[in-house]
């Protein structure tokens, strides 16, 4: 019974992430994928995502700094990768920004690209913060959960 309190907190937190539109159902599917064999699958994936995407973001930043002229093709390809990863973890808002960015790329709107990239980074960072908090909370309840199960 004492476990149910933090559990509820985790659920509420997750719900708030959905309510804010940060995440979509893909995230739930990911959670469903985690099972006995791989209990921290989601966290693992998310960590992987941040590790991988920070590389991508710095590449994009680099590309944007090179300024004259902007290589929109390169930007688009990078952003496609980034978007693919984002959609895999169900980062809804980030994904939407990616789409917007690619749209600007396609029309060759450098100003737009810059703006949306800033926005993207903001969303990306805030999601990271929130997810970290969420996983932290989940871990606190999680080990007990997994401890209950016979290994």
């Amino acid at each position: 019974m004492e476990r149910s309190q933090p559990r509820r907190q985790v659920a509420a937190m997750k719900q708030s992430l959905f309510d804010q539109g940060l995440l979509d159902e893909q995230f739930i599917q990911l959670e469903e994928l985690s099972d006995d064999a791989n209990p921290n699958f989601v966290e693992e994936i998310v960590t992987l995502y941040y590790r991988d995407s920070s590389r991508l973001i710095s590449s994009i930043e680099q590309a944007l700094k090179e300024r004259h002229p902007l290589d929109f093709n390169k930007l688009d390809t990078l952003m496609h990768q980034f978007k693919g990863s984002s959609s895999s973890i169900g980062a809804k808002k980030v994904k939407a920004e990616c789409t917007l960015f690619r749209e600007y790329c396609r029309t060759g709107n450098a100003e737009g690209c810059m703006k949306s990239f800033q926005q993207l980074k903001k969303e990306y960072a805030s999601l990271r913060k929130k997810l970290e908090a969420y996983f932290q909370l989940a871990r606190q309840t999680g080990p007990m959960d997994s401890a209950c199960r016979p290994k």
Partner: protein
Amino acid sequence: MGLGLKMKIQEMQQKHHVPVALRMHDQNGTQKRKYTFIQKNRALIPLFLFVWILVMSYFSWFVFNKMDADDKVRRKEFLETQCDQRARMLQDQFSVSVNHVHALAILVSTFHYYRHPSAIDQGTFAEYTARTAFERPLLSGVAYAQRVVHSERETFEKQHGWIIKTMEREPSQLRDEYAPVIFAQETVSYLESIDMMSGKEDRENILRARATGKAVLTSPFRLLGSHHLGVVLTFPVYKSKLPLNPTLEERIKATAGYVGGSFDVESLVENLLGQLAGNQAILVNVYDVTNSSTPLIMYGSQYEKGDMSLVHESKLDFGDPYRNHTMICRYHQKAPTNWMALTTVSLVFVILLLIGYILYGAGNHIVKVEDDFQEMEELKVRAEAADVAKSQFLATVSHEIRTPMNGILGMLGLLLDTELTSTQRDYAQTAQACGKALITLINEVLDRAKIEAGKLELEAVPFDIRSILDDVLSLFSEKSRHKGLELAVFVSDKVPDIVMGDPGRFRQIITNLVGNSVKFTERGHIFVKVHLAESTKPTTNGTCETYLNGVTDEVGHISGGCNSKTLSGCEAADERNNWENFKHLIADEEFLSDSVKKVACSEAYDQVRLMVCVEDTGIGIPFSAQDRIFMPFVQADSSTSRHYGGTGIGLSISKCLVELMGGQINFISRPQVGSTFSFTANFGTYKKNLKTDVKKLNVEDLPSSFRGLRAIVVDGKPVRAAVTRYHLKRLGIQAKVANHIKKAVSLCGKNGSLASELFQPDIVFVEKDSWFSGEDGVFNIWQLDWKQNGHMLKIPQMILLATNISNGEFDKAKATGFSDTVIMKPLRSSMVAACLQQVLGMGKKKQLGKDMPNAPTFLKSLLCGKKMLVVDDNIVNRRVAAGALKKFGADVKCAESGKAALEMLQLPHNFDACFMDIQMPEMDGFEATRRIRMMESKANEQEMNGECEEGKRRKRSEHHLPILAMTADVIHATYEECLKCGMDGYVSKPFEEENLYQAVAKFFNSNHISPAS
């Protein structure tokens, strides 16, 4: 005559009427734009009138003449007879007088000469003649003159004492002979002593009389006394008897004297005519025509008077052969105009004239009417053409609109699949919703136009009515649940499983009616009931009964606040669906075992007539609007369209469709109570020997694993319970109904009673209403009962039926002992089956493997133990995909680029499938696949060559690794591209189970056994 005329008229009328009638008949027959006889000859109509008048005038003239001629003949005949009659009478009277004079002569000779002394003197004679004067009414007087020869004159004069005088009363001169009057009637006493031979006329007369011995007449002359015209009759008197044929000499010698009398012809004739009728009309003249050249008039005026045109002459014989007399008669006045004939003829003429005019008028009228008719006909044809053109135009236009609309909708769909901001998405979704509404409307208009243009044709394919109804219900389940409505369907067992008809159109009608009901109902229920149209007959009697005594009953129910006769308990407009009648229907069905009946039904008839009722407890239709409810684009009230939306075309289309199906649609509605729409439709029966492609039937495969189970349905409302039972029956579950939980308990038996004889339920379905109305305690007791009495083999599963349920209620139910699954209404057989499977946990894999493609268990069975390669440069994606596949039991290897994948897939390898990302740096998915395929085909060729050694071992298949593309944007073009470069399919990138299943099942299903072998 009159008859003849009439017949003639009739004949003429017929001549003219018959063709007219024929014409009109013809026209009715042909109906074509052909000028009729009368129309063609319209110019002849006045001419006809003119000719008619001419002919009729001539005819009338002819008739008149004929009548007049008849009249004239009659007049002539009349004159003749009258004339002859007069002549004969005159003649008779005359001869009577003559005879009398003759008798007088004989008297004189007898008594004057043969007697001595003479017995007659003047006195005797005068007296005798006076007294016998009545015998001679025509004679003014008679006298006897003695023959005196000259030698005897003196003695004679002496003897009588007077001398012989002439007519001029002078003493007679010397002559050979004298004939002095010796006896005279008193009327002519002035004649005494006058010598009759002194008058020329008399002398001749005397001489002739003496010579012939017969009566002779003088020619007419003015008589002495009166100044009338007259004749003198003279008879000879012989003193001795004459020999038989006396000579002239002998006669003269024997002559003693002469008897004479004067006839006053004028008064005579006048007298005579006075005795006869009609003497005024006829004018009579008598002539002495002895000298034929100069007829002497004896009677009548000298001057020609009277009607000279018509004269009749009659001969008169007065006994004197020497003299000839004639009587000439004529009419006093000219023949009068024949008024009768004239009137008759003019009347007839007028009648004929009128008839002619009537015919003329009729002809004109016919022409006018026919002209009008033709004009109307033309207008009608034009209007019809316009209507057809309108409908066709509508059909064409709607079709033309539909094509681009589909494009718009498709593109909107695609747009929605892309990444959009929430505002954009909102706009796009609104646009799509509007587009969908528009295309629904267009489809409806198109339907209507098609029906009107006669283009809509119904299919005749076998289909399952029950599953269609379930489908329709599931369409509306969300809405009805939201509104808290009971939505239920019931199909009578008599209705065959599969009928021939147009499922799409049937569904359209039902959808429309149910949609309307859902739209207009805020509380209560919507109930769809299907049964054979024939089976309403027994129930209609029931209706009457219940209706009759239902009036007071109803009041009772309402006042009681609860009417349990209908599905939800709300009052419905049509009494027919209430429990009283429903019971009959069910009872009827239970009478025979259903299998027998279905066979009987489907075998016996080629057609079944179904009656479908859709009952709701909505706002109803105002009475004022009820008669125009089926008109297109008319809603009951214009305010409803504002309030509820819709175009109002649905019902009119439904009506058309129902009529196309050979049925009728009608409704009963009471405002604020509800409406019941019912329609009949004809469907063909499905003959099993007719081998139709069974796959084409949209027959729902209901799992058969529930057959033989037994259940109790606890529901206070019998209709609703019957619906539940109907669904359970379809699943093969035998169900009993208990209207209360206590009853259910008693059905199962109390402790101590023998279990074998009792109904042992496997499942208990409890309606939410019944559960909440019943006390919980009962349940607990019951459950305790069960647990205590170990004789029950297993505790029945308790399942709650509900329209909507709150979390609190759900928890409470669970606590009471209900299973986790609540069956949400509206009930559908497939859904009930799914829920039961979940609850009973039986045969899930077997049953649902095929039916539920998204079942993860099936995926698991497909992928378990398979070796997969996931190729993606994006590590996150790679991990996710691998994780997903691993979850289904697959053995997953990853490759981070196309090149790496190629290396790993060097033959021989043991991968069963490969998931390939398309967009990768260096070598993208397409390229990688192409290379893999190339490699494979090389290996295959080699194997072909070296088949002798190796062929037998690896005969089964040549190398072909299933490669599935992973892509985020699932557009058609990409798919084509995938196939072109040799991929087997694609899956959307964040894996969706259903999508994955579909893709994987395609090639794994067939090779299912291969890994095992």
